[in-house]
């Protein structure tokens, strides 16, 4: 658990940050120069806050009143830098082993390399590795120091989309296995939806929004944050109950644990029973009706209550409670024609093919933590 309440002053820039982070992934967003990296630097100890305190798992690493300011080495905060900062004069293995001081522990580097799929690179120079490989080396190197907090600055910025998906799975796996807070600075909110549990938005050194990603639609601060809201897509964590074989493809019966709701989804990768997947569903891909429609091809039909309406010139965004809030986008014309009103009971239809499996958190589940 991370607790922060600090003020940073750097030249003309002043930042005030107060928040807590539980184990899991927190995505930090905001425009360039608004103080995202400064926040990470202050946590890791590369920048001294003007005042305030930082606490990790009950241990104060910075407290201006008590004059506590632990050195970078003693903070147990791992930092994956934007440009990896791999040591060019060391092999990949030596890079991984850099933070390990006990000789007996040096072999752990081999184990983590295997888990991160970089064991074939151990004798190579990091300069000969691809962006994705470098990222995994940097991640593995920090994990071997047994951190209590992991900070990542734009970790997916310079890797292609396929690798990004893979790296995200590794990060999620780290979050699950290590049970530590992971703070990721990113510019791609949409992409991070697949990964994060908490979202934070920073503007001019101030946190303008911070909250659970599954609760954002019930937060006024989020709905009024145009930069985030416009990019929002529905996300769901589902557990695979079983496959349902069709003539030409396999669909999967899934369940959303907190609500007990069942969804039928399609996946391009093979899923197993008990697999945990996160799916993304665009507000544009949901159909909203005033009553249940049975003579229709869509397999998923769920009733809910219309909670909020956010109007824009041509589109109306509706927040519908189906046990949890879901965002639906329909045209102004359809909204007026069907006469929807706040508090109305509505029916939502999702096409199985439009529910995209963003991440399968079970596929790489392994004993990542090297004891």
């Amino acid at each position: 658990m991370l607790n922060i309440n600090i003020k940073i002053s750097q030249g003309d820039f002043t930042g005030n940050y107060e928040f807590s982070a539980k184990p899991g992934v927190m995505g930090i967003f905001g425009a360039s120069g608004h103080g995202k990296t400064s926040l990470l630097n202050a946590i890791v100890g590369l920048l001294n806050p003007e005042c305030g305190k930082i606490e990790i798992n009950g241990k104060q690493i910075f407290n201006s009143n008590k004059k506590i300011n632990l050195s970078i080495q003693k903070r147990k905060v791992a930092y994956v830098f934007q440009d990896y900062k791999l040591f060019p004069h060391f092999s990949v293995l030596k890079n991984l082993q850099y933070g390990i001081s006990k000789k007996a522990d040096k072999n752990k580097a081999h184990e983590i390399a295997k888990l991160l799929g970089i064991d074939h690179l151990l004798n190579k120079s990091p300069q000969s590795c691809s962006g994705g490989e470098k990222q995994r080396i940097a991640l593995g190197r920090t994990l071997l120091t047994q951190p209590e907090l992991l900070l990542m600055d734009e970790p997916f910025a310079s890797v292609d989309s396929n690798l990004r998906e893979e790296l995200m799975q590794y990060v999620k796996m780290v979050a699950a296995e290590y049970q530590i807070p992971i703070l990721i600075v990113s510019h791609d909110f949409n992409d991070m939806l697949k990964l994060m549990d908490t979202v934070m938005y920073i503007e001019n050194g101030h946190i303008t929004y911070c909250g659970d990603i599954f609760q954002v639609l019930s937060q006024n601060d989020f709905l009024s944050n145009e930069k985030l809201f416009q990019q929002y897509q529905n996300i769901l964590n589902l557990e695979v109950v079983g496959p349902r074989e069709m003539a030409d493809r396999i669909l999967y019966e899934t369940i959303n644990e907190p609500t007990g709701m069942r969804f039928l989804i399609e996946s391009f990768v093979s899923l197993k029973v008990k697999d945990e997947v996160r799916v993304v569903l665009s507000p544009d891909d949901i159909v909203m009706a005033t009553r249940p429609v049975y003579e229709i091809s869509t397999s998923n039909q769920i009733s809910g209550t219309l909670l909020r309406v956010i109007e824009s010139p041509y589109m109306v965004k509706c927040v519908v409670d189906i046990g949890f809030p879901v965002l639906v986008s329909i045209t102004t014309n359809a909204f007026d024609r069907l006469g929807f009103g706040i508090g109305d009971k509505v029916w939502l239809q999702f096409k199985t093919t439009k529910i995209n499996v963003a991440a399968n958190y079970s596929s790489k589940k392994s004993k990542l933590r090297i004891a």
Partner: protein
Amino acid sequence: MTFSQAEIQAIVLSLKASGISLLIQTPFALWFGYLVARKQFKGKILIESLINLPQVLPPVVTGFLLLLILGRDGFLGSFLFQALGIRIAFSFGAVIIASSLVSFPIYLGFVKSAIIMVDAGLEDAGRTLGRGNLYVFFTITFPLALPGILNGFILAFARNLGEFGATITFAGNISGLTRTIPLAIYNAMQTPGAELITMRLVLVSVLISISVMMLSGFLKKKMTII
């Protein structure tokens, strides 16, 4: 081509004084080079200017100032002589001090530039991995800056070998004790019939200088990592 005893003495003395001077300078150059490359502190410009002063002062002036400070009647020299019986001026130690003072700015300049060239973020990464500042310096900064540091070492060594003005003023021109190659050449030039000695020593100087420059170039090519 055979060298006389005095010529060999001058060559050995030059190499020995230059080598010892560089060995003494190295820890200071690394420490202070890191400090000026990475840190901001009060009086930084003044201290750097004072260190660089011998580069712009006529070497004779440097030697004279050294005499004023460390000579037998100098404020520090008289103390050392009276309290400890140590006489610095006109000794082998004076050769080392005079040449060190003149070559240190060159060495420091190279070390500073080499350290600036090393990405400070790599050092930060080393620290976030739990390693202490000294460990980070010797495993990251030093190896990555090594080509530049070695270049500075070699060129400062060459500068030491060529040092004349400060040495003759502060250490004198005593055969076998303070007479380095340049002083021996100067001596031979003043002596009628010693043209051959002059030529031999000039040749040695040129050969050493060429070797040093070639070594510097070779190391630069071989050792550059980033």
